[in-house]
């Protein structure tokens, strides 16, 4: 029996503007340690909404969310920020690097925020992750000087900096061409197999989803499979 990392219990979510619409209907599922899970479904089925709830950024929902066997529901904003910092790594569709900083600094920021290691150590760890993803030569470039595929890899390095329990991705390949998508997918698979990294990726790319260990398919706010 493997360890449960993330657990959602009866999660309901409504959008109130302009009219109240139920977007998530009694979502209950869990993710075990080391699983590579993809969430698929048509546009508007609520998969991204679900991801934002699971990521603790969206707190306006009903039901219970447990990360690392700890209840997230009703926690304070500050505590949730700490949870995101420590336990969750994010990769978004759009790369969202801070353009004011170098690539290395971008990767380091969550590590510096966590304040578990000294600045020199955080820098060392950041370099390690950049090397692992084969982009160490970009370290000192400015975030707005690198290509889209490279940005996404930097974002993955950033997600990894604090050794998160789970990496969440919102269409991480959605904005990339075939070749770069492939690279990003290979990185995820490598993380899953070699480092036993738990991954939860929202995607509408069927080819991507098919190659993961587990597919959660959603339709109209319900989990179908």
């Amino acid at each position: 029996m493997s360890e449960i990392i993330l657990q959602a219990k009866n999660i309901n979510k409504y959008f109130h503007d302009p009219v109240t619409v139920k977007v998530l209907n009694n979502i209950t599922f869990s993710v075990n340690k080391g699983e590579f899970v993809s969430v698929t479904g048509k546009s508007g089925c609520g998969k991204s909404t679900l991801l934002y709830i699971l990521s603790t950024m969206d707190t306006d929902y009903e039901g219970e969310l447990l990360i690392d066997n700890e209840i997230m529901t009703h926690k304070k904003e500050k505590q949730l920020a700490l949870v995101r910092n420590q336990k969750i790594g994010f990769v978004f569709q759009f790369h969202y690097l801070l353009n004011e900083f170098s690539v290395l600094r971008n990767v380091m920021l969550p590590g510096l925020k966590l304040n578990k290691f000294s600045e020199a150590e955080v820098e060392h760890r950041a370099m390690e992750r950049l090397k692992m993803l084969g982009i160490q030569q970009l370290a000192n470039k400015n975030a707005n000087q690198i290509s889209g595929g490279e940005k996404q890899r930097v974002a993955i390095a950033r997600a990894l900096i604090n050794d998160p329990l789970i990496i969440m991705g919102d269409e991480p390949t959605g904005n990339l061409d075939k070749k770069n998508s492939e690279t990003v997918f290979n990185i995820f698979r490598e993380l899953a197999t070699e480092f036993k990294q738990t991954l939860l990726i929202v995607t509408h790319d069927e080819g991507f989803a098919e190659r993961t260990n587990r597919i959660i398919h959603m339709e109209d706010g319900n989990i179908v499979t």
Partner: protein
Amino acid sequence: MKYKLIFSIGKSLLLARWKQTLVAAVGVTFSITMFITLLSFMTGLNKLLDGLILNRTPHVRLYNDIKPSKDQPVNSAAAYKDYHNFISSIKSSSSRQEIYNSTTIIESLQRDERVVGIAPKIFAQVFFNAGTIDITGSVNGIDVEAESNFFHFNDYIIDGRGTDIKNVANSIVLGKGLATKLLANIDDVIQVATAKGEIFQLKVVGLYQSGISEYDKSVAFASITTAQKLLGKPASYITDIQIKITDLNQAPKVAKEYAGLYGCDAEDIQTANSQFETGSFIRTLISYAVGITLLIVAGFGIYNILNMMIYEKMDSIAILKATGFSGSDVKKIFMVIALTIGFFGGLAGLLFGFLLSSGIGRIPFNMTALPTVTTYPINYSLVYYSIGFSFSLITTYLAGYFPSRKASKIDPVIIIRGK
């Protein structure tokens, strides 16, 4: 460590838009510069103008006024004690103008902690003889050292030496206008006739200019001994005791107390020169109002620039929040940005304010009223610098507070979804 991180993020955001930052900082610098300059100059001028009168006016003056006696003899007569006595045609009594027991009063004043300095004075009406003309005027017998220390006597000497009235026997310092009338110069001997008709020869050792020309045309100063000689009075004869106290605002209270204690009249500076307080108060008020208005305008500038910056940095804020920065961290980052602008802008403002005011302080400015003043007066009081600096921090804090709060409340989900 955590603050170091917040500072480093703030710094990067600031430097990424250094032109905007500079504009905001220049706004603060300009307003602080003007605030410092305006107040230094205004209060410098105020002090100078007030000093014209206030420096020469004692805070409390003890004297015997010419007035009718309060206790008329009929009131003390036992036979009429229970009656209400109507007395008509009372005249002022010819009682002496001398302050009784002046030596004892001075000794007891010297023991009073509230008293900074005491200067005795004798007032004598005289005629200055110039050929066939007699000019009415007065000779003030003064203790020249006390007078210089507490009432800036030496500042108004434009020629010769004021202290010589003490060192040279039978000497006198003449008002500038009076000297012109008498055609007298330093080292000349002039003739003075007292009210009783006695004639004295006095040597001119200095010229005095107060700036109030009517006064300068009729006044002269001599040592206390010389004045006593003129009046034919003994060494203890004194008509006025001028007192400088530690707290000017206490003067009316102290004056009242002394009047009762020493049995003489006491006049305080507020009663003697009530209009000056008001004038300088209003001038200072206006300077503060203008200075603070400038700062508030600069504050709005900072507010605008921070607001704009936050709109531009929505994505960055969202990503910071998604990767574990809390709302309060984001708020701190923007507060750091605002306060950095205030801090450096304010610091530069203090420097430029100092330079500008010292520049004004070098512009020649000649006032007949004050022979010792040759350039525009500037008050380099540290108080204005600290007020200016605190205000630059306070306004930038307030200007930064609302945009920062807005930034802290940005919902990352909306930004990330909305893209």
